């Protein structure tokens, strides 16, 4: 393989990707229903509770944090990646480091395949979310000590 072949291949790749982007524009945003459906798919052994579960959707509709009503199931995150959704589940919320910077909440985890996760939420949502997560963590700790 020489540099001409590599250069030609790169040009073809960029052109094909641009055509794909043009022919198949991403219209679908993350919605609460979409988050719930994907959490249900990814976590089939959890139990959803429409009255107690809470979805915190980022203002740009790209990320969401789902707090299970039943504390033992912890939280899940959903990310719109292209036109698909990627979910992660943290039954033990102590695995997640929550950092609030400039009104944006970042979740830092030891996950090489999802390098960053940030949600822009309203002030009330941030405080409700952190309170719910702290509540979950406290309940987990109580379970652990019981």
């Amino acid at each position, binding site marked *: *393989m020489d540099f001409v072949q*590599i250069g030609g*291949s*790169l040009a*073809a*790749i*960029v052109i*094909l*990707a*641009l*055509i*794909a*982007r*043009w*022919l*198949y524009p*991403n219209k*679908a945003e993350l919605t609460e229903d*979409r988050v*719930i*459906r*994907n*959490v*249900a*798919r990814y*976590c*089939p*052994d*959890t*139990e*959803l509770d429409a009255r107690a579960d809470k979805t915190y959707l980022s203002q740009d509709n790209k990320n969401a944090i789902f707090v299970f009503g039943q504390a033992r199931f912890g939280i899940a995150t959903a*990310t719109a*990646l*292209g*036109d*698909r*959704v*990627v*979910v*992660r589940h943290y039954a033990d919320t102590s695995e997640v480091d929550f950092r609030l910077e400039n009104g944006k909440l970042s979740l830092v985890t*030891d*996950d*090489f*395949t*999802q*390098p960053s*996760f940030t949600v822009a939420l309203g002030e009330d949502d941030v405080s409700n979310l952190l309170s719910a997560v702290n509540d979950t963590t406290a309940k987990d700790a109580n379970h652990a000590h019981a």
Partner: protein
Amino acid sequence: MLDLPAPTQLAVPAFVLLVLIEMIYGWKTGRSRFEGKDTFTSLIMGLGSTISGALTAALSVGLGYWVWQNFAIFDMGAALWVFVLAFILDDFTYYWVHRMGHRMRWMWAAHVIHHSSQHYNLSTALRQTWTGKFTPGLLFSMPLYVLGIEPAIVFFVSGMNLIYQFWIHTEAIDKMPRWFEYLFNTPSHHRVHHANNPRYLDANYAGVLMVWDRMFGSFIPEEKEEACRYGLVTDLGTFNPLRVATHEWVGIFKDVWSAKTWKDRALFLLAPPGWTPDGSRMTSDMIRQAWLERKKAQKPSNTAASEAVVPAE
């Protein structure tokens, strides 16, 4: 040393043209689906695979010719029948390399790249590994050289095998004629292989001939009532090609580093993906078992709202 062409390199212009044709066909009919960043990542992985293959070719060529020259039992020559025999034996070898690529985490670390797209189209066929030569997969061809087939012939038929596998990465073709579906790998069979629905996990490893899956009990047909949903059990949250190429190696490194015993260290490499000493993660066998138990219990679980039967939104 026989001077044979590299079929996959010659086929690249046709691959590009066919991806473009499928893209337009899918746009017109809705029978294929692409996404810009996903397509870019798949194609970059393909280019990277070609470059890494060229850089590491000396390893496979050198090892192959050393074994052939020193241990070959027969002198097979290069008659047409040798190419046919080599194709069939290479396809059999491919089946086992591929099966082990899903059942041994060391080999999965290289192969996982090919399964990391949530889309299934001709660009997915080109989403190939950069690290395949750094796994035991290299050793599976050795019996062919010991039998007396010259490595150049094996590389050639192996390239032909990969070219065959290109066209089966599509949703645009539903089913082929029944006799063809029985004998050969088809888009339908390979969709099952790429699906992450519990029902379809670890099935249909064939390259060209479906007989191997039927013979060794790994054949699962595509069911009309359960559409395939593509990707990994835990999908990647990034399009970054470097992370796509290396994520499972990083995972293995972390696990081996933190393992407490040498047995655990070995099993983090040799056991199926998802294996842990404490069972805190799930292997595909465990996922399928949990699915079967949910099904058996007829528990009104979250599957009612699941996307397992709704592959794309």
